[in-house]
């Protein structure tokens, strides 16, 4: 591939790719990432073989993509340009799909999405999709993530090209600040402000780190973005690096995500070949390189100072802040850390402008949020909605509601640092602030739906076990606090709880929250506090050695939400 030496070169490449593009060709897009677990690779191979066997390569093309969202129907595929959506596809369906749908335009009923007995062949009519707004997931599931050409065809690298040719770093920072984009890694810190700190920090060497550690159990948004559209993350990093003046970037990825590592490695190689990474990018003075670091299995390494320690080759333990990484981070140099989803938003802000971005979302929270919808809900999968969408819309309209004859009981948001949102808050428009008011946190976007069979004390115990296990042990409040809280919760779930235990739990929760060194300990008690707040009667029932499941959720002592 030819090195691109200017924004015009990129433009020309895009034009030449467009001229080679064959819109008349049928494209079968099949997810081979998440859907791999249910045999998508075998289906993909069967399509390859069938297309070869029937010599159809000129008419049909099979494209392996990232996540298409409706994971509950895995393996899924979309047939373009018709927009037909099939799920639960087996190898044995392949000849039928080619013969009927591709060659004759017929719909195969049994593979269509069905709700209440009604079959919906076209993706535009599937309720799961039509309430979503895909900004970050704009390419995920529609392009081959291993092809930089496909990314370029969809405005890929146009944002960094625009920034390099028409914007100064100050203007980029101003755009980011004006967009209102807030960090998607959990804390929701305004991205533009963070970039400004690092930009203004003194030092000639600066680093930009992409946090892809995604350790929250029940979260798979970053995985999907890294696997399905790795170039969008690289482009976000390029823009960030240009703004803050970094020339070296590191992507820290969880060891449990082999496909993400594979796709990122390919993406970096391709970007280097085109000169979109390396020296004097697009003929400018800006140079930037990216390395991948694989995590080694420690949840706490998602915390920024622990992550830096881990990259430096140390035990991944957090340290007190300040100094913040913005002034003293990797190797003591000013360092900017952003989450995967945050970075994937960046090209859109730059390309479409901050005013456009700002027009989506609520007063305090702009843009969209990806949620990993899982648990007792029909349409488990990946959803992207504008901030301010209600929980009811996500769980019932998009998620299709609760399977079986069960009732919605709670949605767990924010994983081990979050809380359970009960049914009376279903109509809450979700943004950073509202979620916090009801005792949960936006977190990274894990959203686990629980039906009326779930024991909330058991859920609290489950998360405490997780935090206790993952506590790095450096500070006493977290190390001992989580252990003692776990002891009490275990005792209660085993029916051995004492009357005093609840008071003790709350006291421990307070101390652990105030005195812990990092976010892990500071938030470890959240699941306990939120379940005590809404389901106190379940605790009491267990302490009184009655069956907790039998007790309905208590709502009498609920504080009213501000909405």
């Amino acid at each position, binding site marked *: 591939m030819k090195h691109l030496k200017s924004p015009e070169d990129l433009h020309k490449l895009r034009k030449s790719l467009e001229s080679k593009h064959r819109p008349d060709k049928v494209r079968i897009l099949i997810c081979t990432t998440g859907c791999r677990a249910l045999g998508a690779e075998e289906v993909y191979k069967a399509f390859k073989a069938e297309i070869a066997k029937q010599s159809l390569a000129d008419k049909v093309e099979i494209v392996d993509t990232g996540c298409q969202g409706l994971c509950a129907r895995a393996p899924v595929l979309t047939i373009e340009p018709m927009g037909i959506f099939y799920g639960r596809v087996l190898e044995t369906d392949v000849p039928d799909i080619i013969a009927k749908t591709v060659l004759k335009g017929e719909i195969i009923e049994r593979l269509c999405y069905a709700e209440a007995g009604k079959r919906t062949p076209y993706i535009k009519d599937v309720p799961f999709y039509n309430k979503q707004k895909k900004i970050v997931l704009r390419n995920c599931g529609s392009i081959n993530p291993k092809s930089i050409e496909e990314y370029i065809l969809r405005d890929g690298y146009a944002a960094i090209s625009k920034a390099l040719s028409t914007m100064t770093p100050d203007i980029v920072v101003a755009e980011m600040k004006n967009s209102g984009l807030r960090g998607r890694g959990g804390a929701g810190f305004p991205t533009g402000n963070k970039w400004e700190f690092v930009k203004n920090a003194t030092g000639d060497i600066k680093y930009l780190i992409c946090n892809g550690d995604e350790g929250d159990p029940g979260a798979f948004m970053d995985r999907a973005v890294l696997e399905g559209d790795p170039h969008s993350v690289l482009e976000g990093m390029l823009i960030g690096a240009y703004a803050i003046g970094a020339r070296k970037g590191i992507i820290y990825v969880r060891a449990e995500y082999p496909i993400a590592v594979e796709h990122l490695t390919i993406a970096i190689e391709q970007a280097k070949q085109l000169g979109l990474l390396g020296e004097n990018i697009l003929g400018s003075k800006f140079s930037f390189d990216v390395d991948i670091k694989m995590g080694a299995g420690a949840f706490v390494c998602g915390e920024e100072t622990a992550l830096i320690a881990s*990259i430096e080759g140390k035990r991944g333990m957090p340290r007190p802040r300040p100094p913040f990484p913005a002034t003293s981070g990797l190797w003591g140099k000013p360092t900017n850390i952003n989450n995967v989803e945050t970075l994937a938003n960046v090209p859109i802000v730059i390309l479409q402008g901050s005013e456009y971005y700002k027009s989506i979302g609520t007063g305090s929270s702009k843009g969209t949020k990806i949620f990993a919808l899982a648990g007792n809900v029909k349409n488990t999968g990946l959803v992207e909605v504008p901030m301010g969408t209600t929980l009811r819309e996500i769980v019932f309209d998009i998620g299709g509601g609760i399977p079986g004859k069960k009732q919605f009981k709670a949605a767990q948001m924010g994983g081990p640092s979050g809380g359970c949102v009960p049914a009376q808050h279903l109509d809450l428009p979700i943004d950073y602030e509202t979620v916090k008011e009801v005792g949960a946190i936006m977190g990274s976007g894990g959203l*686990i739906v629980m039906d009326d069979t779930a024991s909330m004390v058991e859920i609290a115990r489950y998360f405490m076990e997780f935090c206790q296990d993952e506590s790095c042990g450096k500070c006493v409040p977290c190390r001992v606090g989580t252990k003692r809280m776990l002891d009490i919760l275990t005792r209660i779930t085993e029916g051995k709880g004492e009357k005093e235990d609840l008071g003790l739990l709350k006291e421990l929760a307070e101390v652990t929250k105030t005195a812990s060194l990092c976010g892990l300990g500071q938030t470890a008690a959240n699941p306990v506090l939120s379940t005590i707040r809404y389901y106190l009667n379940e605790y009491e029932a267990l302490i009184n050695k009655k069956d907790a499941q039998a007790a309905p959720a208590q709502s009498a002592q609920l504080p009213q939400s501000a909405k």
Partner: protein
Amino acid sequence: MHKSVTVNKEGTSDVDLAKCRAILSKYNRSTPSDLIPILQQIQDAYGYVPQTALSEITAGTRIPLSKIYGVVTFYSQFSLVPRGKHTIKVCTGTACHIKGATDIKKKLTEALQIHEGETTKDFKFTYEPVACVGTCFLAPVMMIDNRYYGKLTADKAEATLKNY
């Protein structure tokens, strides 16, 4: 570093250090941040981090053995004892937990006759729980090496073992 912990050339150790040396030779001007990647490659090559390899690393990188040991024991990816040919990771994340991961763990413990974190006597399987493998929509899930198995039941999980 201590001479006494380097591997003796007469070969009292039955670990073949050629692979380890090949890995280290790529890092002849190593920085401290190479330690984890080096350990990851050694873990990959041997299935664990042999004691003798630790000594090689400390000789090759001049990172004190105590520091290396601290890192190895901090991260769950590294093991100081030999592991099975295949690693079974049963997801115990939230989604899998509420969809029956506990039953699967119980069944596997019975089928393999080992506890979590242990390796079968024939060194075929190492079995460990992991918090979320990122395929929660398929809960409950397990991974064997890099392959995902979704929508499991206890019986399906047990039957899957026969493929290995």
